[in-house]
């Protein structure tokens, strides 16, 4: 589509105009795989990730394995399909970003096909576009490139639902054109042995609204970087995350809101619960407010609820501000166990300890689940929280 090509070009032309910011948030981007060393684990951006469990996805594991099956629906006016060849090549870096890690560079260079969801200008999708990605084999490694393109003044919800067993490195590029209203929900509901390393990169147009929800329950290791840049003033991004780590799981979410334009907004809320031996979660919330980004507003928040002994939550908000002319910037981070007073209050009304804990955990996630704003997903999330609770916490109390 012409709109997209044009705006990619203008974005690329615009990029050098932004001052280069010396910051660990910005390892130089490059499409050349050889420009990216294999990470050792000592790098700032890899220090929490157990590389050994990545099945080589961060290094040189083959990305051409067949280990997933994808199916989807396409509401009227929306096209969803796999493109290859020149068409796929033209979509590499369509979000106006150059890979900053080896695996993302490799995905763009080596994966021949792109799954393209195209919501043309002015189209309002009548129902969520749901892409089901079902893994078939966790011993096979693969790479995936996905492009979600929301045309000017379009409105749609895209759900990426991951289930089954697989080891996948994925790059999801999202283009939200001017005035569009885009929601992207990525659900990681993998089987216990899955490995999922993914990078979601969105470019939010002038006065556009972008909602990204990262929901991670399953998998041995799930790491997602959800990044946003802005293509013009007035864009707004809501970055939501909900995760539930069980014994032995590593769930890592990083966000990066790069305020590259004035009067833009970012609002991030990530909430997680942990239960069981060696459940480990990581949240790193990076926000950069560049010199040009006057009059922006940003707020980021991460809350973790630790349900049992033996788990560990890392939570690191990181705000870098290069202009004094901002409307508001703030962050909050908290990791806590059950609040004795809350449990006491509920129990003093006759509610058993088990039920009181269940209520508190549901309450902890409730407002976030409502914010996701997709009714079919809300119901599913409530059920999944329930199922997660049944696994561990409640069992221990009998």
């Amino acid at each position: 589509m012409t709109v997209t090509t044009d705006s990619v070009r203008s974005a690329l032309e615009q990029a050098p105009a932004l001052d280069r910011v010396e910051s660990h948030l910005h390892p130089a981007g490059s499409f050349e795989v050889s420009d990216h060393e294999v990470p050792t684990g000592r790098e700032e951006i890899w220090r929490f990730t157990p590389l050994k469990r990545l099945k080589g996805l961060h290094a040189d594991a083959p990305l051409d394995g067949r280990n997933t099956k994808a199916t989807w629906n396409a509401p009227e006016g929306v096209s969803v399909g796999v493109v290859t060849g020149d068409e796929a090549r033209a979509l590499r870096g369509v979000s106006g970003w150059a890979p900053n890690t080896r695996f993302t560079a490799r995905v763009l260079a080596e994966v021949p096909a792109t799954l393209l969801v195209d919501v043309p200008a002015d189209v309002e999708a009548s129902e969520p576009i749901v892409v089901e990605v079902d893994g078939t084999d966790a011993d096979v490694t693969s790479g995936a490139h996905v492009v979600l393109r929301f045309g000017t003044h379009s409105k749609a919800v895209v759900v990426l639902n991951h289930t089954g067993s697989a080891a996948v490195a994925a790059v999801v590029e999202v283009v939200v054109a001017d005035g569009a209203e885009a929601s992207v929900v990525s659900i990681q509901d993998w089987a216990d042995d899955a490995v999922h390393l993914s990078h979601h990169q969105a470019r939010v147009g002038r006065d556009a609204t972008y909602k990204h929800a990262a929901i991670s329950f399953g998998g041995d290791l799930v790491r997602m970087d959800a990044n946003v840049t802005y293509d013009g003033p007035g864009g707004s991004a809501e970055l939501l995350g909900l995760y539930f780590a069980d014994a032995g799981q590593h769930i890592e979410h990083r966000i990066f809101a790069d305020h590259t334009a004035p009067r833009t907004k970012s609002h991030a809320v990530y909430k997680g619960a942990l239960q069981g031996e060696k459940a480990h979660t990581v949240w790193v919330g990076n926000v950069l407010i560049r010199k040009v980004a006057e009059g922006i507003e940003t707020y980021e928040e991460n809350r973790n609820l630790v349900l049992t002994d033996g788990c560990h939550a890392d939570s690191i908000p990181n705000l870098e501000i290069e202009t004094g002319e901002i409307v508001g910037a703030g962050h909050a981070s908290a990791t806590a166990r059950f609040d004795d007073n809350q449990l006491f209050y509920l129990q003093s009304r006759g509610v058993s300890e088990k039920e009181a804990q269940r209520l508190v955990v549901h309450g902890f996630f409730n407002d976030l689940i409502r914010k996701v704003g997709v009714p079919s997903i809300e119901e599913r999330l409530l059920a999944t929280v329930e199922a997660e609770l049944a696994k561990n916490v409640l069992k221990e109390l009998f």
Partner: protein
Amino acid sequence: MSKLVITDLHVTVDTEDGPKEILKGVTLTINEGETHAIMGPNGSGKSTLAYSIAGHPKYTITGGSVTLDGQDVLSLSVDERARAGLFLAMQYPVEVPGVSVSNFLRTAKTAIDGEAPKLRTWVKDVNAALEQLNLDPSFGTRSVNEGFSGGEKKRHEIAQLELLDPQVAVLDETDSGLDIDALKVVSEGVNRFRAREGKGVLLITHYTRILRYIEPDFVHVFVDGKVAESGGKELADELEASGYDKYLTKANA
């Protein structure tokens, strides 16, 4: 039947300097249908008594007993005590984010009765209880106590009292922070509860004001972790006139 008997109750809390004794031998019997007021200065241990009866984990019982109709209350968990018929209206009700009042009330009622309330009558009962306490029906969808004003929290406690219908209610400074209209509304709620068959009330307060609306059968002056004097409601009038001074000097001497 509902008789709450507290005998020589000793309670400590853990502090940085080790355990500190707060209750130093409390003895009190609340017979079926009786309302007892406990009055005492700040820090005398009134809330400690209330929480200890309800079973808050912060407090350690080091001696004495509490029984409800002969059943040992202290060996029960917090929720078992509630299901046995005890209710505590808290001085500082706790916020539970994300849990709606209506979900909370239904869950509590189900736990207390051992079965879910009949849906149709229950919704009516809840709305009526809220309305009688001047709480808008929209409170049903709000998170428990979150963003409630001080007065709304107290009225919400009394709405729970009426709906959960315990045998013995301990009301910890339900009157504090209420303006005169709210005080009347809350008192009417407590009086409706008292009018039910055989209910016991332990009304903890700092001021005599509420006793004009809820007439106690007995008044106890609580000082330094125990009952310093007991009497009829005339004792409240005496306190109104002369305050706690005479007891405090006695306790400090």
